[in-house]
């Protein structure tokens, strides 16, 4: 089982997901969030909270497959994000642009 954050998080970073993570598995850089697969329990709690549907679980679509490795590599080297933060300025426009 795998759960990953993908490109829709970029320039949005709403961070609603981190509030419902029961095991604190979200890490972040300035751009977006990543899930540490070693810690994530694949409970799916975060998936419906993302306003831009950036989080995917199995079966991961073909065009999002590369994000499995990106999450796995980036998450452990970045600080944890466990509290809701302000979304990026312009996140709501970005959300509209993405069609949500």
């Amino acid at each position, binding site marked *: 089982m795998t759960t990953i954050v993908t490109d829709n998080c970029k320039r949005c970073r709403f961070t609603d997901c981190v*509030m419902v993570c029961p*095991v604190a598995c979200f890490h972040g850089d300035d751009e977006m969030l990543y899930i540490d697969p070693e810690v994530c*329990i*694949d*409970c799916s709690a975060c998936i419906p909270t993302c306003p831009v549907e950036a989080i995917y679980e199995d079966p991961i679509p073909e065009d999002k497959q590369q994000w499995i490795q990106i999450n796995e590599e980036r998450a452990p080297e970045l600080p944890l994000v466990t509290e809701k933060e302000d979304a990026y300025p312009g996140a709501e426009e970005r959300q509209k642009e993405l069609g949500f």
Partner: protein
Amino acid sequence: MSDLGTEQSPLRAAIVGSGPSGFYAAEALLKSKPVVLVDMFERLPSPFGLVRSGVAPDHPKLKEPILVYQRIAESPQFQLLGNVMVGHDISVEELKNFYHAVVFTCGAETDRSLAIPGENLLGSHTATEFVGWYNGHPDYRDQVFDLSHDTAVIIGQGNVAVDVCRILAKTVDELKHTDIAKHALEVLAQSKIRDIHMIGRRGPAQAKFTHSELRELGELADCDPVVDPNDLELGSASREEFADRRNRANMKSYEVMQGFASRPSPTRHRRCHLRFLRSPVELKGEERLERVVLMKNRLEGEPSQQVARATGELEELACGVLFRSIGYRGVAIAGVPFDERGGVFPNQEGRIIDGENVVPGLYVAGWIKRGPTGIIGTNRADSVATVKLLLEDLPNLDAGSKPGADEVRKLLKDRDIRVVSYADWQRIDAAEMQRGETAGKPREKFARVEEMLAMLDASG
């Protein structure tokens, strides 16, 4: 202005209940800027609520939030007062004298009833009883489940219903290396059940289980999932529901069901049947349950507001055992207002209210606040929201001297209550894991309170 929440005068908070919402409330309090001391009350000697006794034994990953709770419990500002029942061993009125604030996170401990004739026949059970039994919860240790019949019926189509179905459907080999209670595995090993019917009042588009739980029913060693393709035909309102992205999780479940429906005829020893648009109206039997009478329903109403309406057409299904899993409700505690209809503590976003008025110092989070919806993680956001209000109220809380755990322990000692500390629990935990090791299981739970206490006394 009081100095409550400083090193000299820490805020003393009691949390009642040690499940996910309790621990996430503790986490939020301990992380907060004011200095807070948290004492968590739990009626059992073992903490972690439904993560320990609700999550199915074959879902070990979903129990990993316990690792988070262990880290919270190891804070020097945290104490566990286990084996203490608030409202029985110590009153809520007394707690208010010991603490500045009390947060109730005691969950929804009982099942909703079907309210149909025959509901209490022998052989008719609640999912809670069965789940508690196979998970070694002391309240359900002596439940008796007669699995000598060939047909079992589960009323409800949520994730708990799927758990019950899967535990009934699995072979002993699929369960024996989990932390399932020994007494349950012994009974399940003798099970004669061949057909399991999971029955929902609405259609396949409205079923509440998640697609990942459902998918597992198609991956069992000796059980085939059975779905009648005719049952998957959707009305226009349900098709409209699927067109709405908010229902994409239901759509995924539906796709799993389509996969089940297109499978070749079942060949395995057991079958689990997903049945829709049916409501039980009566349980029949002489000495014990023999059959359930089902009313066929049709859906009526606008998309996302469809309700099941009886068609008047009845059918009977012979069965020897039935589990109802149609939702939970909370249990009242003396001294706290209770909403009988909702089965929750009445509250405004987490502040407990009595009629229109906020009751100072009393808070609520988790299922006892909002009802039994959401999963483990949902409670984190919920508890954080409650704690935020509590901290906003801090300047107005009764800042008088509140003695906290030390004085509570003295009072309970006078009442002959054996308080189980977190260090005590760690010894029980280690003993359970050791017991499990010999059986090739992650742990063998103590399923009786007396066994846990005897273990503590024996090892001094």
